[in-house]
């Protein structure tokens, strides 16, 4: 059984259909990518799954249980945690304190939260910054802190909303490694990303949406050859480059 099933999801804002009849599922332990042009509705999909917005119609099931209408914090207890496209660390708290909040929210005492928080920071190579306020971090580290905060809630599924945007090439590589490491712990990842070479290398399966509707689904290689995806989003150039890259690898 799939970890998360999204069934015929609809969401409109006024006259704009942000999500239009979207159906897909996420398997336990995979890395699923979600791509599409700007305004395609990717973030709205995340908002609905994580409980920040309620859908107009359609169902979302986690392990077979309906989760539509649940609040973000209770979804978090059930194992779904999102990161924000615009990183939202607790700016005036230290990096360690940022990570402690999710652990404390689970009911752990302060002392345990400090220990576990330190472990998470070590896992993500953030330990050097643990005592400085989050507002002093660079954007790269802020985004990494977002992932650390997500991990602090002991999630089953992390919804990562553009965790690589605005990063330089080195930071993108680092973040990819981190995402793989997180996935290696058995945590399922659902990743929205604009940095295509990253998501193509990372994801096992990719869903492409445009105007809120799914236009393609498949492995990165299949997606990059798909005519509809090329016209709507990728463009001929990327497709050719990606084919060349794939050939070179072989």
């Amino acid at each position, binding site marked *: 059984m799939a970890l998360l099933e999204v069934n015929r999801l609809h969401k409109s804002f006024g006259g704009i259909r942000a999500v239009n009849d979207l159906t897909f599922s996420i398997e336990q332990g995979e890395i699923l990518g979600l791509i599409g042009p700007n305004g395609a509705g990717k973030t709205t999909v995340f908002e609905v799954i994580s409980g*920040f917005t309620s859908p107009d119609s359609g169902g979302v099931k986690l392990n077979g249980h309906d989760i539509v209408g649940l609040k*973000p914090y209770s979804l*978090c*207890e059930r194992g779904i945690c999102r990161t924000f496209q615009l990183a939202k660390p607790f700016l005036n708290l230290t990096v360690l304190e940022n990570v402690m*909040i999710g652990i*404390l929210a689970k009911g752990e005492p302060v002392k345990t*939260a400090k220990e576990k928080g330190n472990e998470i920071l070590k896992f993500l190579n953030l330990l050097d910054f643990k005592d400085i306020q989050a507002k002093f971090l660079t954007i790269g580290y802020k985004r990494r802190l977002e992932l650390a*905060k*997500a991990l602090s*809630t002991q999630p089953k599924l992390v919804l990562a909303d553009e965790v690589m945007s605005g990063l330089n090439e080195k930071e993108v590589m680092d973040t990819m490694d981190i995402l793989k490491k997180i996935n290696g712990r058995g945590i399922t990842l659902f990743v929205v990303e604009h940095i295509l070479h990253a998501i193509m290398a990372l994801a096992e399966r990719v869903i492409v949406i445009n105007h809120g509707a799914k236009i393609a689904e498949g492995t990165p290689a299949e997606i990059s050859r798909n005519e509809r995806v090329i016209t709507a989003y990728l463009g001929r150039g990327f497709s050719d480059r990606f084919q060349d890259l794939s050939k070179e690898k072989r």
Partner: protein
Amino acid sequence: MNFPSKFHILLIAGIILILVPFFVGSYFLHVMIIIFFYAFLAESWNILGGLAGQLSLGHGIFFGVGAYTSSIMFIKLNVSPWVGFLVGGVFAAVLGLIISFPVFHYKLRGAYYALVTLAYVEIFEKLALKIEYVGGALGILIPLRESSLLALQFQSKKPYYYICFALMIISIGITHWAKMSRFGYILSAIKEDEDAAEAVGVNATKYKLIATALSAFLTAMGGVFYAQYTTFIDPKTTLSVFVSIEIVLRPIIGGVGTILGPILGSFVLTPLSELTRLLIGSGQSGVHLLVYGIILIVVCLRAPRGIFVEIQTLFRKYFEKRRGEVVRHYGTARS
């Protein structure tokens, strides 16, 4: 930490304050009582307004509910104000929950929250003015019965001094506990960013409600003390926006969210207001408000995080210079 520890400074200050009543006159003692009294209220507000970051302008309600509950019980049922502390506190806490739940549930934040609480004070003030049972516009005059601890009425000011001092210490203790505990960490996350806090599993509404109840309970205790100390309450002086503002100004000037900032705020502001009243006379009512306004502007411009934080920073810098150390301060909202 090499510099004289906060603990030692506080200990010495505490001892001095305990000895003060033996050396000073009645008026000075009265000023000290008022300082402690506002320090206590400011610290009570600080739990909701400072730690949880909810700018409540509705604390006049909780204050008034405490004062009215205990006074009515005292006059009509002959119940000791000590019971009034508890009952008034519980009433205020429950009222706080009832008022705040819809506000938090429908996610009114920041200025909107402040406006709603402001509106509620006005409503309750009008209610108290209209209801004859609680004295209406005439208010309640609390008869002097006997000088006894049970009735919380004394001939001398010294017992009031120590009771109010104890209240202040209790509020500092509670705030200190709240800040260092799981509760305080979670409140600080809510203060920083409520959405982000909910995203990591914090039930923000629940924690804000707990903070409201705790804050309301303590504020109502202040109201009970006020009623017994001044022996007269009416809607204008106990259940109005002015009370709310008197309470809010002290933490803002002293340092919102710090443990000792609100206390310091009261020690700065309360004597000033007494002084202006003394020098200019209470006939020219409103002069102390003018002084508040000027101080508020200066503090907001020069020390937006409050006087306490500025002093702390100066203190640290001074002692680090003496040790010849260069330390970069990244600081934290929780220090």
